[in-house]
């Protein structure tokens, strides 16, 4: 990118440890180091790709153990390059839970031979991400164990995210894949399909299991049933227009997706929403988190045969939906955030409403706690089922309640506070074993902590505007649009030209209900983003699912999948 500089960031004067180590180890193979809005980006030669990733993971000063995201970028119109030598970029995002820093590692591949060595040997989580990059961009990852289409189907022709892919085509899948894995003809094992449309699968995704009696001998997962290529659509939408699309990612807590998107764009623009807007965002995000956890726990236990906690907990969810309706006029697809603030101020009785909902949440959490936590029927289904170790969880790229259940206290709200989370006092619950029971307990405790945050935020809810006073970002007030020509022109310009951010790329991340929800935005200064990549938390989590249930009982697989809380809208995007 044009923003890349060879020099270390001028602001700090000292090169970041990741850049320093890689420069010392790789020498000329390190191509450039850039720092934009505090995001460190290192570009290396293709030959040094795997080595650089391994160094980042293993070097004690760096310790980038948590795999976050890997994606492709098509730099088709990059006229700084002749012959499209660097047409495809592969972008890797990593995080270190010990040193609390992020890094973005990039490499490029030419149009003629888009081959990049695979990272599956370094990070387990890279597997599906590389398949996705192959599927959408046609970047071949040499050495990948199973480089097949992931989000699109087998009859799909071409790679849809390429900038020169002709859109509007239809590819019909005439014969769906019956078998996801090879079964020997003389095998006595039984092949069982769980999903794509199965009550225990919480969305449309499919797992095929080879059963040895009640035990799963081998299994394979298939996703993409709900793939709509949100990222491609985002490339022809303005930053503002993308907000309704984000509602449909994790639809159980849609407000948080919009919150994350707004923060990522605000980071790109270098602006900050007013304090009142941030406080309201925090309150509604925490309510959304509660709602998401309610669904995770409620539906999980329904799968195990306990319908009472589900009905008990869904009462509070209904109340939260009513609160959202009062604020923004929709229950599920809220579209309440705007870049730089909120669509409109909260209703007058907002605090009273929130207090009422808090009371109801407190009540149902206590009731569900009484119904489940010490119930031996429930604990015997959950305890020591689907245990996931700390290191393995990091390598898969697990985040959120699932990672915390495995004992890693990584919470974006604590470690990289945004929207004023640093003002609020709350605890980060962690588990020890990393089984279903730990994940359940962590979610229960998080709901209580969310209530604490909401309480504090309500207490110091500041007054003032709810959207920035920036004519290039926020629409002017309607009263001015109706009455004066400057505001009207401003309004017209903003609607037609959109928000114009500076060229550059940012990775904005927030703590979604399922964990770190990241938006990687590449901007070229136009009104549409050049590339948007969502880092969906449950994509990493679900990726580990087949290996988790291999060797487990089929009934346990149902208990595990509910506890992972995989949301298809976010998984398939």
């Amino acid at each position, binding site marked *: 990118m044009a923003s890349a500089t060879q020099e270390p960031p001028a602001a700090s004067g000292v090169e970041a440890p990741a850049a320093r180590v890689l420069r010392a180890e790789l020498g000329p193979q390190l191509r450039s180091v850039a720092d934009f809005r505090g995001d460190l980006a290192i570009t290396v030669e293709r030959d040094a790709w795997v080595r650089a990733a391994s160094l980042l993971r293993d070097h004690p000063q760096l310790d980038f153990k948590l795999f976050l995201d890997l994606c492709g970028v098509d730099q088709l119109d990059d006229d700084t390059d002749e012959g499209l030598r660097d047409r495809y970029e592969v972008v890797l995002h990593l995080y270190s839970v010990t040193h609390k820093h992020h890094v973005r590692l990039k490499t490029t591949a030419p149009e003629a031979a888009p081959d990049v060595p695979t990272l599956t040997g370094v990070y387990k989580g890279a597997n599906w991400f590389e398949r996705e990059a192959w599927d959408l961009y046609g970047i071949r990852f040499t050495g990948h164990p199973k480089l097949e289409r992931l989000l699109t189907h087998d009859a799909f022709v071409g790679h849809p995210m390429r900038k020169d892919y002709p859109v509007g085509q239809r590819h019909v899948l005439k014969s769906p894949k019956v078998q996801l894995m090879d079964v020997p003809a003389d095998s006595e094992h039984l092949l069982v399909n769980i999903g794509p449309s199965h009550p225990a699968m919480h969305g449309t995704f499919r797992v095929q299991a080879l059963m040895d009696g009640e035990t799963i001998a081998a299994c394979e997962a298939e996703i993409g049933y709900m793939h709509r290529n949100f990222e491609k659509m985002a490339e022809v939408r303005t930053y503002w227009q993308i*907000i309704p699309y984000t509602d449909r990612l994790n639809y159980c807590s849609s407000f948080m997706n919009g919150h994350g998107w707004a923060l990522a764009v605000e980071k790109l623009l270098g602006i900050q929403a007013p304090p009142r807007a941030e406080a309201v965002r925090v309150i509604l995000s925490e309510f959304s988190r509660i709602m998401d956890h309610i669904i995770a726990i409620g539906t999980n236990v329904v799968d195990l045969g306990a319908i009472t906690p589900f009905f008990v907990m869904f009462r509070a969810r209904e109340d939260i939906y009513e609160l959202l309706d009062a604020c923004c*006029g929709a229950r599920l*697809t809220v579209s309440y955030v705007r870049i730089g603030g909120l669509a*409109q101020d909260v209703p007058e009785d907002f605090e009273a409403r929130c207090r009422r909902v808090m009371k109801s949440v407190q009540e149902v959490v206590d009731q569900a706690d009484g119904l489940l936590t010490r*119930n031996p029927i429930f604990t015997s289904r959950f305890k020591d089922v689907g245990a996931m170790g700390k290191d393995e969880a990091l390598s898969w790229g697990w985040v959120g309640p699932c990672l915390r259940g495995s004992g890693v206290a990584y919470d974006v709200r604590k470690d990289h506070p945004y929207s004023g989370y640093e003002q609020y006092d709350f605890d*980060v619950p962690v588990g020890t074993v990393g089984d279903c029971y*730990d994940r359940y307990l962590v979610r229960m405790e998080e709901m209580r902590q969310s209530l604490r945050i909401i309480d504090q935020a309500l207490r110091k809810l500041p007054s003032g505007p709810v959207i920035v006073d920036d004519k290039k970002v926020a*629409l002017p007030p309607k009263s001015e649009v109706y009455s004066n020509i400057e505001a009207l022109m401003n*309004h017209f310009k903003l*609607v037609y030209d959109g928000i114009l951010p500076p060229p550059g790329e940012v990775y904005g991340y927030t703590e979604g209900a399922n964990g770190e929800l990241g938006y990687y935005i590449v901007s070229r200064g136009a009104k549409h983003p050049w590339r948007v990549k969502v880092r969906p938390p449950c994509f990493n989590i679900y990726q580990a699912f087949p290996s988790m249930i291999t060797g487990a009982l089929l009934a346990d697989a149902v208990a595990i999948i509910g506890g992972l809380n995989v949301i298809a809208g976010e998984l398939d995007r």
Partner: protein
Amino acid sequence: MATRVVTVDRNLRTGPMPIVRGMALTFKNMLATWFGGKASTVQFPEEKRKTSGRYRGVHILTQRMDGTPKCVACYMCATVCPAECIYIESGERPEKDIEKYPTRFEIDLLRCVYCGFCVDACPEEAIVMSRENDLVGTTRAELIIDRDRLMDRNKLIEHGPGYRPEEHDVRRPVRIAALERLRKEHGIVPGMPQRG
């Protein structure tokens, strides 16, 4: 604030008592629902859940005092629409200060995502939303609603207006024909949205 990490206690004592208590809770909730009126559900469709005054339902085109559309066919709503569901054709008006009006204004409700951006983008308070959310059609064409249906919809009698700008266009007042008729013919003034 310092990070406080709490480890969840997974060694709680289990036993038959939690099951008994759970059963008691279930019966308590059952009685509260039956006799205490604490049900969370409503008897749909006889009874309908109340939506807020900001509810984003099917659109309404407002009118000038003379009954012509307030819309000046500026295409802002069609531009901002993320679902690309608004189709406008414009014609000329004889008045110098209005110039244009929509000869066609159609919203494809099968595409619409009810985000309310059209309302935000409108510089004339010409498009607002109602609280109607249970529109049914037997053909696709029925759910592409045209200008005249958008201007005067009987359904409003039941639902009332929803999402609309916080400030009125006081210099060029609008009227919502259906509401006026409602007041004249039935003497009902539906609840207007509360403005925070």
